[in-house]
């Protein structure tokens, strides 16, 4: 037993080191990549404060906030997915399928449809994320209230989640078809997931959520391990199943809501990353949460740069790149297992 534990924790440290290394390498590579290419050496020089004005502008005003934001969003979504999969005891659970993304999406589309023209462009960039966050929280609240009946069983949570998701997507479709083509395009891009406007304000707004909630979730790993065993066993082991689940659900929703608010409805990341983490290291949340967090950040950072630069004619929404990058690897893991 101790042999296995030792092996596991060595493997865990190895994976974490590898991910951190990859993040650092990719960080510098993505910083240098774009319409204006900057060599890694120049990137370091600029970061140390001795680059040209032009390089400083590109790095500090455009690329650095966007890359940081991608890291944070990826982390938030991946950890949120890991929590949701455990508390619903369902492998397909993720913020996207349970209606949290569509709730946010609905609020944003409402905003684009009714309010955007009334406000200036600058102002709407700041207000849109607030709408997304409110939409996500509203969806989660609806799910919880409607699933409540002497407590919330995982299966009812999932079922009500799909119901809410279907309702919001229907409303979305109807609203979207009434839009003019330009708004329609904007909404489509948002719904496919896009880090639409990265600046330091967004980074600062998202940072506290991630810095507080991810460590908190990690600290709750044992609770998650127990909940994952099923309600009966968890109750038998002395877990206050209902309270724990509510608390963890709130954490997951807050993480997903804040991330989606800043990054659009990026689907699939929250589903696939925890699965990959689990297939690498096993089911213990002490291991899967940190790995998911790092892997989610790395995946989104790389995807964002690829989406931005692959085609010269347009940007590909980052959610699409995430799926194209991660699905094949995930499929490979499924086959190998």
């Amino acid at each position, binding site marked *: 037993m101790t042999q296995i534990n030792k092996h596991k924790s060595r493997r865990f440290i190895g994976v974490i080191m590898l991910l951190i290394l990859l993040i650092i390498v990719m960080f510098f590579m993505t910083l240098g990549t774009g319409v204006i290419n900057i060599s890694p050496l120049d990137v370091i020089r600029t970061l140390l404060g001795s680059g040209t004005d032009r390089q400083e502008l590109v790095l500090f005003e455009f690329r650095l906030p966007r890359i940081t934001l991608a890291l944070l969003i990826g982390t938030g979504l991946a950890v949120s997915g890991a929590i949701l999969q455990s508390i619903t005891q369902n*492998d397909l659970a993720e913020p996207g399928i349970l209606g949290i993304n569509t709730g946010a999406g609905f609020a944003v589309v409402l905003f684009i449809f009714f309010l955007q023209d009334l406000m200036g462009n600058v102002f709407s960039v700041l207000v849109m994320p607030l709408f997304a966050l409110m939409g996500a929280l509203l969806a989660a609240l609806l799910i919880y209230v409607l699933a409540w009946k002497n407590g919330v069983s995982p299966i009812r949570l999932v079922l009500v989640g799909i119901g*809410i998701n279907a309702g919001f997507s229907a409303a979305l479709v109807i609203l979207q078809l009434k839009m003019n083509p330009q708004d329609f395009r904007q909404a489509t891009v948002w719904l496919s997931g896009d880090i639409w406007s990265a600046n330091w304000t967004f980074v600062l707004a998202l940072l506290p959520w991630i810095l507080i909630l991810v460590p908190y979730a990690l600290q709750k790993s044992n609770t998650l391990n127990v909940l994952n065993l099923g309600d009966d066993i968890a109750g038998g082991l002395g877990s206050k199943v209902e309270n724990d689940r509510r608390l963890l659900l709130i954490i997951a929703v807050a993480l997903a809501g804040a991330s989606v608010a800043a990054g659009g409805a990026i689907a699939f990341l929250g589903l696939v990353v925890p699965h990959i983490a689990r297939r690498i290291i096993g089911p213990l949340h002490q291991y899967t949460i940190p790995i998911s967090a790092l892997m989610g950040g790395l995946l989104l950072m790389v995807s964002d740069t690829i989406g931005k630069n692959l*085609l010269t004619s347009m940007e590909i929404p980052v*959610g699409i790149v995430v799926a194209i990058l991660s699905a094949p690897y995930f499929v490979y893991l499924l*086959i190998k297992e």
Partner: protein
Amino acid sequence: MLSNIQQSKFLKLMIVMLTLIALFFSIGLSVSFGAADIHLSTVWQAVANFNDNLTSHKVIQELRLPRAFAAAMTGAFLAVSGAVMQGLTRNPLASPSIMGVTNGAAFALVLVMAFYPAVSNFGMTIASFAGAGIAVALIFMIGSFSTGGLTPVKLALAGVAIGTLLSSLSSVIALHFQLEKQLGFWMAGGLAGTDWTSNQVLLISGIIGIVIALMISKSMTVLNLGEDVAAGLGQNNIVIKIMGILTVLLLTGAAVSVAGAIGFIGLIIPHMTRFIMGTDYRWIIPVSALFGALLLVLSDVVSRLVNAPYETPVGAITSLIGVPFFLYLARGRSGGDKK
């Protein structure tokens, strides 16, 4: 009350009869409502003794009837494939629209729209069938090549992975060729433009698909006790799974090729049916078919009426009608329920 129904064969049969009657009348409604309202008695005459010289009879025969029948069949097929998928994967989130089948069809269609814009309706049907088939084949291959075999979890995960991959690729192509709005309309689903040819497509693959589904319905009930139990009872689970996947391909492929990606029916109707009828798939499959048909026919009528003369996407209407009812039923389940 629900538990009474689950125990009594008589009540179950009553529900089947009532749904059949409701379906019959809603098809009547569907035929009589439209740009020109036609009285129900005229509808009957157009069917019983068709008169080639009357416009109303022609409208009924060539536009309204095929549309109503297509709606009924599409709804039934989506519901049955959803039920089969949820049974095979033992996951309540499984449905044709998140399991890659619909996305495969959409992918093939976008390819065709992008590279052969002049394609005929029949060509689109073929393309979406082929796309659905390729998606299913991919998912199935993932299961068969893996050392652990085709477990329910793996089937579900592979379906979602392949589905997301294909839909992402479709989005890229659509964005590049400026086809987002067409793709959006198709993803929302709709029954406008269905004719007797589409009904033939539906009928042929539908009969085969439903017969297979009914054949494996008893085994699926056993399978839901768990794979090991089923195998212990002497059941060949692999054969059941292959037949189930074949059913899903035939039914979803046909439905999607005719009516686009009408989500929600395949996900929610099987749940509703299970809430009412219990866990026996010999009941779930036929009753899902009836409920699905009824919901889609009614939704199609509503979609033509709410914003006339424009049609509202029928997929959105099915959700709006179905969600409140679904939530009510989902809440009706008792506290410590297991899946």
